[in-house]
């Protein structure tokens, strides 16, 4: 029996608002427990919610970016259930009339084709607090700092057919919310969380099978692994002739397995009804127009533009645009360095990104400006310094406060490009190593590398390698004629 995998993802994105969705508490991450929980967040008797304007704007931005419809009127509803990290005993969410619906996004499924994944809806809701079970011996600890943080829940149709597609979709949404600057997408901090609904059905059938929900997956890798495990688990059950139980499961990344969540086993009747403390959100067409005008350039447009406007190679354009912070740095860089865009791209991707990856820091942690980077690039372009020298300068730039010129000066890193100077040293080396000279002349071409290396050694690496190559060849050929 051949099985088809059917996956839908629900992604919870914490919106990058300063204050919470229904209260004016700060949303800052990592503060001491319960120091960012106001009376409204704590669900005190008598408190009331008031909606954050920015949360609405961010939801609309998302909706526009996925070609969705923006509801003229949407309603907040109460989702009623009891849990200690849910202070009011209900979560304010949206049910029947979400603010965004009927969108879609394209994901690449191999090098050539794209697949459309429909986005059923995206709605606003408040986040719950946190329960920590290992803080006390005989009790669970509740921290309500996170309670009330604005969330956008993005729900896809079950259009995803494999764990790779699911991971790609998750990454695409991640990239999009960062591009739109509606979320920092920080999965370690819980700003971007994914639940996967997975079911199997016989290939060719159009009836959905029973699905299991895997909650709170917080990495692209884990979403693939969790789905893979779950597919195998369900396959095994179905091939026995048994039925899959509709339930909520957790993914254990250490054991690489999913397991049933005991505490949420009973089917919950959430008794949704419109929240009487809040009024319908009316979105005017003018607001949508205004937001649309101010939508930033998104990934696909950016890649296109890099290729057309800056003649960057497609593969490089994609690599740079993948991360909006890198793209912005790049654009800043080429604003200051206009000589050779491809060279700038190359330098950024291999040198700068190389350094960042090695040191395991992100571009936003970088202390040097695009300005200073452009200066360095300029020196490389003018052959004032060699590529290897540039590496040293980059490190210095990042680690000190000095300017490019200062570093070149103090470290004496200026490239030697004076042909007279180089010639002299080349002649020295040729005299010093007669055996290798002869070896080269008798046909061992690779020995040239050794000689070049010696010249570089004598100049402490500062000689312009191209010139050294050229002059060495010239001079050594002169020996042949002798």
């Amino acid at each position: 029996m051949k099985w088809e995998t059917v996956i839908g993802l629900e992604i919870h994105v914490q919106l990058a608002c300063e204050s919470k969705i229904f209260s004016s508490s700060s949303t800052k991450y990592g503060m001491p427990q319960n120091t960012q929980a106001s009376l409204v967040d704590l669900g005190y008797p008598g408190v009331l919610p008031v909606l954050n304007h920015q949360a609405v704007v961010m939801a609309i931005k998302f909706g526009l970016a996925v070609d969705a419809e923006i509801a003229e009127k949407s309603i907040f509803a109460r989702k009623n259930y009891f849990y200690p990290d849910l202070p009011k005993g209900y979560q304010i969410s949206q049910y029947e009339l979400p603010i965004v619906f009927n969108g879609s996004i394209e994901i690449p499924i191999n090098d050539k084709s794209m697949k459309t994944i429909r986005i059923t809806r995206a709605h606003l809701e408040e986040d719950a607090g946190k329960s920590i079970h290992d803080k006390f011996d005989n009790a669970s600890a509740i921290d309500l700092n996170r309670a009330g943080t604005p969330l956008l829940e993005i729900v896809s149709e079950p259009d995803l057919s494999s764990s790779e597609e699911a991971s790609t979709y998750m990454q695409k949404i991640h990239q999009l919310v960062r591009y739109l600057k509606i979320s920092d997408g920080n999965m370690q901090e819980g700003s971007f969380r994914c639940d996967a609904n997975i079911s199997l059905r016989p290939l060719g059938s159009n009836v959905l099978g029973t699905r299991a929900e895997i909650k709170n997956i917080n990495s692209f890798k884990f979403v693939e692994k969790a789905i893979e495990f779950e597919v195998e688990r369900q396959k095994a059950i179905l091939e026995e002739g048994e039925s899959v139980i509709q339930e909520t499961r957790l993914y254990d990344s250490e054991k690489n397995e999913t397991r049933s969540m005991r505490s949420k086993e009973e089917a919950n009747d959430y008794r949704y009804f419109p929240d009487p403390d809040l009024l319908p959100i009316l979105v005017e067409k003018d607001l949508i127009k205004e937001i649309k005008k101010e939508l930033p350039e998104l990934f696909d447009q950016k890649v296109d533009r890099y290729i057309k406007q800056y003649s960057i190679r497609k593969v490089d354009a994609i690599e740079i645009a993948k991360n909006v912070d890198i793209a912005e740095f790049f654009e800043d860089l080429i604003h200051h360095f206009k000589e050779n865009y491809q060279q700038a791209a190359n330098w950024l991707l291999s040198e700068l990104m190389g350094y960042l990856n090695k040191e395991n820091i992100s571009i936003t942690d970088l202390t040097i400006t695009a300005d200073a980077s452009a200066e360095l690039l300029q020196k490389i372009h003018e052959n004032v310094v060699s590529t290897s020298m540039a590496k040293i300068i980059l490190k210095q730039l990042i680690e000190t406060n000095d300017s490019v010129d200062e570093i070149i000066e103090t470290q004496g890193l200026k490239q030697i490009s004076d042909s007279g100077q180089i010639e002299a040293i080349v002649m020295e080396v040729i005299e010093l190593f007669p055996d290798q000279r002869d070896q080269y002349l008798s046909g061992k071409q690779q020995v040239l590398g050794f000689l070049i290396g010696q010249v570089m050694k004598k100049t402490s690496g500062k000689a312009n390698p191209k010139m050294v190559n050229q002059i060495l060849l010239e001079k050594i050929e002169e020996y042949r004629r002798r």
Partner: protein
Amino acid sequence: MTVKKSDINHICDLSKLRIDENEISTFTKQISDILNMINELEEADTDEIKPMAHPMNMSQRLRKDEVISNNDRDLFQKNAIDSEDGFYKVPKVID
């Protein structure tokens, strides 16, 4: 219309209430009476009517996204019978 004891038990599960055995019959009868009264609604003709969203026909006002710190954890936690080290405490939950 009568609600059954099992309905009462289910409602209590959903709303985290507990009714003692000796009271269940009374509550069951009372809730049934209330629901009987409520069932009169069936007769109202609401065919073309939209449900009322709000007594005043208004839309939600939006608040500026700025932080106003209204936190006074220690004062607030004076009202909590079981708190420690800034956390609220509950019997251990196993997920």
